[in-house]
């Protein structure tokens, strides 16, 4: 089976799928162009509610990891930084990092860092991962 799902876990099923797809795409286990199982097949195979699967798929589509083709199952698009840019609008992508932005700003304020110091830390990391 493609995914390892644990319905009894405290982590909701859709989130388990999200994390596993993200991991598999970034590690290369899921190559671009790979077709994922249909919502129905996955639901029956794991005996879980199909709506939770389609919720995960929709979120992954919004993230740009998966693409929906009419009449065909969901396919892997490629790394989020690559071809997805043309497919997902900017504001949607910004939405994805908003929670993390909240966290970082809050932490910075609590540690009584200034805005300049925060931006400096961000820029440093950005430059490090630029390749």
């Amino acid at each position, binding site marked *: 089976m493609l995914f390892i799902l644990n319905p009894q876990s*405290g982590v909701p099923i859709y989130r388990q799928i999200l994390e596993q797809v993200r991991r598999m795409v970034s590690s290369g286990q899921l190559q671009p162009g790979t077709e994922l199982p249909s919502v129905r097949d996955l639901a029956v195979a794991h005996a879980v509610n199909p709506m939770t699967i389609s919720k995960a798929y929709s979120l992954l589509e919004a993230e740009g990891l998966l693409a929906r083709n009419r009449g065909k199952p969901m396919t892997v698009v490629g790394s989020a930084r690559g071809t997805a840019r043309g497919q997902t609008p900017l504001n949607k992508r910004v939405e994805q990092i908003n929670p993390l932005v909240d966290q970082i700003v*809050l932490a910075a304020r609590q540690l009584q860092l200034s805005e300049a110091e925060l931006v400096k830390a961000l820029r440093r990391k950005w430059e490090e991962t630029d390749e």
Partner: protein
Amino acid sequence: MNSATVEASHLGKMFGTKRVLQDLSFGVSPGDVVGVLGKNGAGKTTLLELMLGFTQPTEGAVRLFGHESYRLPGDAKARVGFVPQQDELVDHLTVADQLRVIASFYPHWDKDLMSRLCQEWGIDVRARIKGMSVGERQKLSILLAFGHKPDLLILDEPVASLDPIARRQFLEQLVEISTDGRRAIVFSSHIVSDIERLANRIWILKEGRFDWQGDLDSLKESIVRIHLRGSGRLPEVLAIPGALSVRRESAFPTAIVRDWTEGAQRELERQIAGTVEVEALGLEEIFVELHR
């Protein structure tokens, strides 16, 4: 479908002077799978019976496909399927005869589905119901509710007597049914793991009211257990927002909290001068904790 499958507003039920349900408002739409959880005596069966129109509410109203459920017309009944807690099979008949009798009441009946499921679930159509075990009777009882492809399926503890294999088969069939997204399922069960697999919405009944009424995913994300690991002695009074219960017996106290936020986490970590670990809980844990 312009009218919701089920709609209720401020539903209440009293038996004589005993109050069983109070101020329940809910809606079920096509594609929903609702799991109803509650202690024995919390009112699950009464709620399902009110939805089906078996009994009349003392307050409020509940409507099925837009009709008042107490006066559900015949053609609306053909869109409803019900699996009762105690099977209501006629002992003297064979399985085939029982299927035919029930089938005769409905305009559409899927005979192929019935024979396929009988085969898959190991029910001998020529057997007499009198001689069947409790599990087989329950399987037949469930089967009878699928034949007319109802738009609303209501099940009251349908798997109480089934072994794990039979339960899995039943779940798989329910998943099949819910894949087209046009049917609604409401079922009550004590077997929390089944609800966890199948439901997208959860109603937790406690003493006649909804203790939780919403998505299963939101429930799991909302109610968590936090573990306090303080470096020194913990303050006597801990302000934990949204805490449902706190346990301080050991050196590492825990609390069950609702709608935990990052801000609350930072604040608490500052209070105890330590770290707070957040543990996500499975549905059974959540249910137990909500009832402490």
